[in-house]
């Protein structure tokens, strides 16, 4: 972790202060790191990545006629994991839309409930997504859940109509396999809407081996590079993190009103995936990228 050039000294100091520097076994390191992630990133309304300690990873966004940076009109894509929202849905069963009322019955099978919602007709699905986004917009002000991971829409677009649907979406964006299939909604929004955008580092990715460091020497505005969980990509996508933001229904409609079920059966094992991704980075960015450990 401390060898990751993307982790600034100031953030490294915060981590070391939290987990300690001596007498740490693997289990204690994992526990300390996970706790640090929960307090400083996941549950924080001002996560470390937006603070000055993370300034080197801030992706500049062009402001009108001044400075360099990403064009704010560029589109981002986010996969919203609806299956992962079970607890949030159950906490909002009295939402004004009435969409989640039936979850008041705690014995209701969430998987079946969500499947019925996602496989409903167009109008019903739109109502459900609108209610879900409204629920999240309200919930984020009380319960932080950071960060949001986003990729470039234009880079992700070729995957949208892949025959394996959401399974391929998840794989392309490097989302680690869950213990169950997940329903994903696709959201499309502008760089200029997120406030601030950042290149992710391992510190923002929890205790996850599915996050792979991006090689040194790559400009910050290229972001990170998600590990393709299918191992087939011939060019790395760019990925970024930002805080939770308000999503509007048109973020979903502009993305093609997509909601699909993603499966978790990846063709390659974890180590093979990391090797493939490492090879891709070396092939793409040159020998400097070979220095990273597998």
């Amino acid at each position, binding site marked *: 972790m401390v060898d990751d050039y993307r982790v600034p000294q100031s953030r490294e100091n915060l981590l070391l202060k939290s987990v300690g520097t001596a007498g740490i076994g693997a289990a204690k390191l994992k526990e300390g790191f996970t706790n640090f992630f929960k307090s400083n990133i996941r549950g924080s309304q001002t996560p470390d990545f937006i603070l000055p300690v993370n300034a080197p990873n801030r992706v500049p966004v062009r402001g009108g006629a001044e400075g360099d940076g990403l*064009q704010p009109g560029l589109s981002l894509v986010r996969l919203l994991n609806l299956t992962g929202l079970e607890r949030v849905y159950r906490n909002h069963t009295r939402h004004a839309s009435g969409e989640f009322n039936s979850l008041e019955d705690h014995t209701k099978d969430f998987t079946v409930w969500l499947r019925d919602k996602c496989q409903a007709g167009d109008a019903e699905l739109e109502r459900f997504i609108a209610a879900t986004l409204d629920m999240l917009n309200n919930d984020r002000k009380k319960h932080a859940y950071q960060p949001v991971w986003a990729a470039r*829409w234009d880079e992700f677009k070729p995957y949208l109509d892949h025959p394996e649907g959401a399974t391929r979406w998840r794989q392309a964006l490097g989302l680690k396999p869950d213990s169950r299939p997940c329903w994903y909604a696709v959201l499309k929004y502008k760089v200029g809407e997120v406030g601030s955008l950042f290149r992710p580092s391992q510190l923002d990715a929890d205790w996850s081996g599915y996050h792979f460091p991006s090689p040194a020497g790559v400009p910050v505005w290229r972001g990170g590079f998600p590990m393709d969980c299918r191992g087939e990509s011939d060019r790395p996508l760019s990925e970024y993190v930002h805080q939770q933001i308000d999503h509007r229904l048109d973020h979903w409609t502009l993305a093609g009103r997509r909601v699909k079920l993603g499966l978790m059966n990846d063709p390659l094992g974890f180590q093979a995936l990391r090797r493939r991704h490492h090879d891709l980075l070396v092939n793409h960015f040159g020998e400097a990228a070979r220095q990273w450990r597998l």
Partner: protein
Amino acid sequence: MDRWLGFAPVEREAQLVRWLQNYDDAASWGDDPYRWILDSLPPGAAGADAQSALADAIRAVLARRPDVEPLGTHREQLLYNLLQLAAAIHRPGRLWPPLLEMLNRRKLAGDFFGSDLRASLRAALIGNQGDTQLAALWLRMGRKQEDFLPGTLVDAYYGALMLPPENGGPSPVVAESLSLAAKDLEPDLDRRRPRFMELLRSLTTAFPRDSARWDVDLIRMAGAAGWPRWACSCVNAFPRFPDPGDVGMPTPVARAIGSSFDVPIKEELWSGCLARMTLGNGALAYYERFRDEFEAGLDNMREKTKYRSDRAWVGLFHMTFERSLNQKWITRPSQIESSASFLCPTFRPLNPGFSSADQSAH
């Protein structure tokens, strides 16, 4: 800002109008009120929320047509700060329609301490373009034919750069704007290369791609839009193409390789300024040696001698090419022309009598 966000919309608008005229909290700041407001924004998503609220308030003020109806006690100060604030906030969904209406009324006039208010409108329009309606205006400005909004070639280029992206890339107008800018960017010819490179950097950072892809895209963009050939010194003249073994190079190098290794030119680029070839081992070794030597020379020139002009680039290229022949990195072909035949019509040396009419021809 937190207190302001707690106001009702009407109160927010009224307070904003007062702040923008340097009243209340903004009075003690000592700088333009719009800067004080921007500096008061929180980081991250809270800042995005605050910007949306500000955009709503700005839209409400613009709806009162402050360019034609009296508003506030310090009209010019209010308009200047209002438009500068709008320029710094990218919210085309809220701000594009009222800004476009103000432009189409063509009534905005006056200045605030020497700053033309129409220049502030231009800045606000650049940052909040919701569609491509202004593409023609930016080209008009680049041709110095725009009769309402003031602006330079560079302003026109930034206007084009901020047009809504097309398929994740820049608007096609950008290539032509760069062409217009390159033709008349800088009266001091020793400064035009670094200034044009700044414009290219703003393009490549606005739309991130792999550097190898941008290298090729810029060359194709230049060829299609007819950028002046001196601008060849501003791009990577030795690009790598996606096809295995395919590389680009200045045409004299391509011809030398072609003669020595019997490799044909696969594609002429940028009106013959550069060429693309598929190279095997021997030719590739020469190419890489030439490229590395030239790039090391460029680095040295930039770091040590501080020479950054296109003339210096040409001189370095000429020296590297001659050295490659004289030191027999490559067999001197019997019928190869000097690099001067490539350079002379392309990179005319500086000359005090070099008139602007001559420049535009190249």
